[in-house]
């Protein structure tokens, strides 16, 4: 019985430790974000037919993803290096600017969800704004590494 308790606590502990890996967490969120943007990108480029419900799903997915993106929890001091992070030191030097960039992105995603696009042309505007937010943040707060 005692062994079982220990085993469970060990498991629980490693589980907690795994979810306490902010670099892995933020990378997973970014990956998911990219996949969703990719789905929308295909529609905008005309590679995939416009489906209002599917587009709204993707936008809602982006909204949920952005709301989970807690910069304090995901970019704590001490997570500047390691595990193939491409986060730029600028994130910790200019927290306010980084948060503002993330907030602008969340606002643009929310706006897109609030007025669901009825056709591909209506999607182009909000999609362009979102794509631009990606670039604006990556311009300053990400470093490409080999």
């Amino acid at each position, binding site marked *: 019985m005692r062994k079982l308790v220990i085993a469970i606590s060990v498991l629980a502990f490693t589980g907690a430790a795994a979810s306490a890996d902010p670099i892995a967490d933020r990378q997973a969120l970014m990956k998911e974000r*990219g*996949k969703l*943007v*990719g789905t929308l*990108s295909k529609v*905008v*480029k005309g590679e995939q037919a416009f489906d209002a419900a599917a587009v709204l799903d993707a936008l809602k997915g982006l909204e949920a993803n952005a709301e989970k993106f807690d910069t304090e929890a995901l970019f704590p001091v001490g997570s500047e*290096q*390691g*595990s*193939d992070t491409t986060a*730029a030191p600028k994130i910790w030097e200019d927290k306010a600017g980084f948060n503002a960039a993330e907030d602008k992105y969340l606002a643009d995603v929310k706006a897109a969800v609030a007025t669901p696009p009825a056709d591909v042309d209506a999607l182009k505007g909000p999609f*362009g704004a979102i*794509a*631009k937010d*990606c*670039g*604006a943040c*990556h*311009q300053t707060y*990400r*470093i*490409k*590494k*080999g």
Partner: protein
Amino acid sequence: MGRAGKLLGAVVILGAAAAVVGWFLSAPVRLDADTIAKLGAGDAAKGKRIFFAGGCASCHAGAKAEGDARFELAGGVELKTAFGTFVAPNISQDTRDGIGAWSMEDFANAMLKGVSPSGEHLYPAFPYASYARMKPSDVADLYAFMKTLPAVSGKAPGHQLPFPFNIRRGIGLWKLAYLDDRPVIDLPADAPEAVVAGRYLVEGPGHCGECHTPRDFAGGPKKTEWLAGAVAAEGDGIVPNITSGEGGIGDWSAEDIASYLENGLTPDFDSVGGAMVEVQKNMAELPPEDRAAIAAYLKAIPPHPNGYPPRKPQR
């Protein structure tokens, strides 16, 4: 005179001769009359495309300028490199602080030969080593377009460069080694039109090689690793390999490249980042056939493995 005296004399004479030769070799060279004659009148409407192809605003407009602010070319953007800090000058139409008083010939000499109106060498942080490959008529069109842009007063601060890089005359020797108006990549005579057009855009006005090609000890591009990616001039990151070699973009289709230049999204669902954000904004302003030409060229050039060292393992 003793033997040591003779030797010393010879060294002094040789040294003086080298200095004289070096002085002549390093003299600024302006455009010849032939090229000046090819400039023509310049067409401002066509020059707008060249303005974006050349990425002028990326360095000469304020950092992160949007909309019409990208036409306010007051300079001031800093480029912190291993050679020192370069500061982009004011190239607005202000006659005192900018280049409003420059003639078309002055402008062409700066763009194609890296020589200022007063006859000084310009630093190759201004990418004339690429612009040298531009057609004189495109330079003239760009000049005409820039004449339509606003004058913005205020001089940008000077470069902050340590010795010996603060001696402009030395750039003359650098130019002998690296300033060349011939294309980097030889293409077969029957190369598709788009590839040839793309070569012009990439190697000339687009000056892609300035960041994407690794540099040798003297800061010249290693043409044997053309566009293979490089350690970034600024900061501690890298600039990606854009050939089809290992680590490059061989798995991107020509459409993927063109689309990335238009909307900033990579085929693996990532987005444009770093200094490329400003570049991509400019590329988005080009006509679609220009982006397609750039893509066609990048698919046609020799593949190379990454031009930067592999990443050191972390922790």
